[in-house]
């Protein structure tokens, strides 16, 4: 990129030529960064969907990995250690933060989601060690693909347990 030398002292023309060289060099770097960002975004962007939205799109080819979040239903967690196959079901939670806030915070939203049989639910399969934070009413954030059988095959599984961090003391769920 900087393979040429340039004499600093000299005529004004030479000086402005030197400046132009710096500007071109700078633009090249900017272009390189933009190129890296654009191509990497295209290569690794994932749709962030809710369980509801994913159900609507069932059958249509989304074409790339999807990230989806849901509330873990504790009774459904099953683990086969021989194959490291983890299966569980999640219930729909809103994807939008302001919506979660409006409904009384994440802990409340998760509590409502697992106790509402009318909510859309989705089965999840994940191969790997069973995460320590996987439990009833945890929020699971999964990355993967929706199979044609309606089961979500996750490559990546993140968990959040708001109740355990700081949300509320036991019994504080307000009626």
């Amino acid at each position, binding site marked *: *990129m*900087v393979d040429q*030398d*340039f*004499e*600093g002292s000299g005529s004004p023309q030479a*000086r402005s030529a*030197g*400046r132009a060289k*710096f500007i071109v*060099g*700078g633009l090249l*770097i*900017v272009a*390189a*960064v933009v190129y*890296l*960002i654009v*191509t*990497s*975004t295209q*290569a*690794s*962007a*994932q*749709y*962030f969907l809710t369980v509801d939205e994913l159900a609507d799109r069932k059958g249509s080819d989304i074409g790339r990995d999807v*990230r989806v*979040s849901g509330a873990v239903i504790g009774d459904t967690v099953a683990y086969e*250690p*021989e194959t*490291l196959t983890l299966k569980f079901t999640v219930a729909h939670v809103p*994807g939008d*933060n302001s919506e*979660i*806030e409006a409904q009384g915070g*994440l802990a409340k939203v998760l509590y409502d989601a697992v106790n509402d049989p009318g909510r859309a639910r989705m089965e999840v399969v994940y191969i790997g*060690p*069973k995460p*320590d*934070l996987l*439990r009833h009413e945890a929020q699971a*954030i999964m*990355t993967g693909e929706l199979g044609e059988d309606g089961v979500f095959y996750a490559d*990546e599984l*993140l*968990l*959040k*347990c*708001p109740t*355990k*961090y*700081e*949300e*509320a*003391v*036991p*019994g*504080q769920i*307000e009626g």
Partner: protein
Amino acid sequence: MVANLGYGALIITFLVSLYGIGSAYYGARRKDHRWIASARNAMLLTFPLVTVSALSIIYLLVTNAYEVDYVASVTSNSMPLYLKVTALWGGQPGSLVFWSWLLAAFASAVTLRKWERDQEFLPWVIIVSLVTLAFFLSLSVFIENPFARLWQTSSGQIKTAMLQPMGSIPFIPADGNGLNPLLRHPGMIIHPPMLYLGFVSFVIPYAFAIAALVTGRTDDRWIRITRRWTLVAWLFLSLGLILGGRWAYDVLGWGGYWGWDPVEIAAFMPWLTGTAFLHSVMIQEKRGMLKHWNMILIILTYELVIFGTFLTRSGVLSSVHAFAQSAIGPVFFAFMGLTFVVSLSLLLRRWNELKAGTNMSSMLSREALFLLNNLLFIGILVVCFWGVIFPLISEIFTGQKVTVGPPFYERATAPLFAGLLLLMGVAPLAAWRYSTAKTLGRAMWKPFIASLVVVAFILFSGIRHWAAILGFWLCAFVAAVTLYEFWRGALARHRKSGESLPVALWHLAGRNRRRYGGYIIHLGVVLMAIGIIGIEVFQSETQGTISQGEQVTLGDYSVTFESLSVFDTADGRNVARAVVSIYKDGQFVGELYPRRDYYYESQQPMTIPGVRSTWEDDFYILLVDWQPISTAGVTFKIYHNPLVNWLWLGGFVFILGTLVAAWPDRDLQKSRIKAKSTRYAAAKA
């Protein structure tokens, strides 16, 4: 009672800060020293006041005062004393007070320095510090009150409030929620305060930058005053990031150290601008250039510090760092927007005064390469920022939330990091002002040949992964250049002064601490890069369910499952602990004890890996699952992480180098005093 004391102290500090801002402003405008002195006293008063508040929280935490909501949510009866104390930063309300406490301490320390020639900066430094402090205090006083108590209303509801609501009675839970076991790790206990120390100390150089802009004293005085603050800020931030990585590696159980999680990135972004700033101020000091750029960098760093505090504490983005959502988001954005606009308009007002006297001429000169280094750091910053806000942007424009994960960051930043490594090798050899390919080549060919020899060894060892070879070559090149620099300097000194080589080396580093400290930091980066290449490129993993006496094999290693015991401990854990024998090339090398602790109180399991660490690799084994009754059928997940310990060694060298660079320069101070006295004599004559 103590809660009221602590809350009262917070309110008073807030009012004192407001007073200090007002009187400093008035004093600066009227050039009235009495008002400025009063503002200075206000600044100094904030520290003992916030100390009262912070100690009150600690007292409440240690005495299990569960009637206070914060105490009930972050501690529990079974927690040991040190964890109760450190629970001060275990949740959002406490963290904010902790932030204010550190800021009050640092700003007070700055206020106590000898101002002499810099009197005109004093009121503005006070104003910037106090505005920042008042902002954080207002969050604690009005929104995230750590002293709010729990009350039970007549209808049985539990409410959180500072003052007793009508018709309610105090509610005191028998036990608290406790700190999440995942956070009960030494790395995690000191990681947040390190990050905070780094965040907070960056406020000081920013305050001086703003003071320079307001007063119009836009030479590099502000940079020279704050040089050491910047290094200290950077030291703590780096330490925080490294400790965070170590925590993730030890505790999160995925054999990784960095996950490109938004919260990690939030701490990484001010580090990036801070690093660029550390480099580019040298150009201003040496060549009087890049003055605008340095102002922009320190303003950006300040905003990113606020943004980082906000991200780690607001839950606006999904993250493994599951801190709660809270109402402070909009307030943070308003504050950031306001300070950003004010800073930029001050900068624009002084734009012409900040123009450099000289232009850059040679594209291979040291200053041009430093500029390139800055552009690469900013490039990485832009990648990170884009990744963090992309979900918000895509939602605004397409109505569809789209996120990017770690592959995005890895792909986009890898070439930029490689470019930075290359610069680390080239720039120290480039001359200031004027340098050509020829002069550079002459300076560089010896280390270059040395690095090629290393590459030959790597090829000989059978590695054919081209990216890894390129990476190792860069590491070898930078290491060779850096060591060569030490050697050349020591040799020249040895010839000139006749000192023995080790003594010459010692004096060399001692006389120019920033330069040679910087080189040590570069060596640390090289070691870290070796570790990162090792684990990123050559990590392998396997898993298996085996019964007693059976084996799983991974590469040269094999693991035999010996036994499993499950027992309860006195501190409320149920522990399942496996004993495995590790064999390398058929030779027994030791036993490991991967285990799973189940915390009854928080119903939280925690997986603790068994790790065998050598300079060559880490053998990292997790106990995944077991059959409850028989000791047959235990499942393990196994990682082989080559070279990962170089990452931790590199982190250590990195911090050591920063300490060398930040250490007070005795010789420099002496020469300053000398210069001053000669000036004084000249003025008298």
